[in-house]
């Protein structure tokens, strides 16, 4: 977080880090908003959008502190980070791992979507063709289609099946299913698999 972020960007980065389960980064982003956990604004009757954000940031700050006290921050081995992206993963079941990542710099959003479209293209698009009914409606009504690039893909390699999708909010979620009878021996292989997902987005041109 080299540059000072605007209030809304810092708050949203914090919210996204919270979603990913990365409390340490969430706290760091909240510090940029000036939040200190003081919930004094809750008793106020008047707001403006900035004050509303500050109030929410303070609430989240208090929540994060509670989470850290309860030791809910993932172990560093479960944090995956590249230049523009960062996330955390956890083990949902013996052979299922879930990874959630967010942008460290929200101004990178257009680049993320562009690159995700390219990576998805490399792995093969999986969009179902529109039904005949909708195609017909579209042609008759002279409708406008929203730009809707495919932002999900599937990677299969080394006993791992990794499903990646990126939402409108520029959040990345990947699920890794370990397909061998023998469970993974260490967390490094899983970490590396998720790191490769982020690296593929960083390196594609």
């Amino acid at each position, binding site marked *: 977080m080299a540059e000072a972020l*605007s209030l*809304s*960007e810092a*708050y*949203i*980065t914090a*919210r*996204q880090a919270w*979603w990913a389960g990365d409390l340490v980064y969430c706290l760091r982003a909240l510090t940029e908003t000036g939040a200190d956990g003081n919930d004094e604004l*809750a008793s106020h*009757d*008047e*707001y*403006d*959008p900035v*004050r*509303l*954000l500050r109030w*929410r940031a303070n609430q989240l700050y208090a929540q994060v502190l509670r989470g850290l006290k309860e030791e809910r921050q993932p172990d560093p081995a479960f944090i995956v980070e590249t230049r523009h992206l960062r996330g955390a993963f956890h083990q949902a079941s013996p052979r299922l791992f879930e990874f*959630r990542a967010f*942008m460290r710099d*929200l*101004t990178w*959003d257009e680049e993320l979507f562009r690159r995700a479209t390219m990576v998805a293209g490399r792995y093969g698009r999986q*969009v*179902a063709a*529109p039904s005949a009914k*909708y195609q017909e*409606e*579209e042609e008759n*009504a*002279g*409708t*406008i*289609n*929203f*730009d*809707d690039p495919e*932002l*999900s893909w599937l990677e299969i390699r080394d006993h791992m099946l990794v499903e990646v*999708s*990126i*939402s*409108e*909010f*520029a*959040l990345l*979620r990947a699920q890794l299913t370990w397909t061998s009878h023998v469970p993974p021996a260490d967390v490094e292989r899983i970490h590396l698999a998720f790191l490769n997902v982020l690296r593929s987005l960083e390196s594609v041109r």
Partner: protein
Amino acid sequence: MRFKVHLLLGWQWRNANQRRRPCPLPAPLLNIPPGRIDVATEYAGSYHILEMGRHFDAYSARPYVALPYRYTPMLPRWMPAALMERARAADVTGNSGEIIAGLIARRLFKVRPGSLVHLRARVDRRTPDYVIDNSPQLLSFIAAFAGVPTAGLPAHWPIESKAGIGLLDRRDSEAALRQILAYWHHIRNRYSDGVGYGLIVTTELTRASITVSVLMPHNASHASALTNYLRSCTYEQIKGLAADDLPLITRHLRGFDG
């Protein structure tokens, strides 16, 4: 699932039970694959629902079939109504609306992820679902749609969503308006430039229809009159405003015909 999106200034009604008039603009189509809903819900949905995309897909389908129970004719006199089907859960439907409002902001208004702030309601106060923070794309879109200069539009817009299975009626839109109204009341003194402006996104799942109502005052004097009215009221008075009194608010807004 593909949804037709209708854009309206305010809302128009023929009478209380009839559908609003169609938008004169060509209806854009919004494609919403279930996979997109999953991640968006985890981030911005108020309710904790796993695999929301599958719910969304099933709830949008018509006819809706949710694992119907096989009827076993035992003790017929004691079974006045065998459970033959399952209903959609209202909170899951509501979650869909919340997510779709976010998608509309992202795709239709090109609001960047860093400018779309998802809010959570205070226990004692109504709050809209989102506030858009400084989105030039939104302002250009609204200005072109409503035929007004961007200079007069506020930088922050609240968005409220409503979702239902079939046809939504006036009460649903009024309920959404009340959320926005509470926001206007909160900002009446500290950010009066934003009073009168907002977006209501109404989703009718089985009709594959989304209506975006753009709220804005007729002009500066109406905006000022609305602000003064809000300043003269307590929050409780605004919250308890009867349906018949809503014209006290809507007469200051464009696109309302009663």
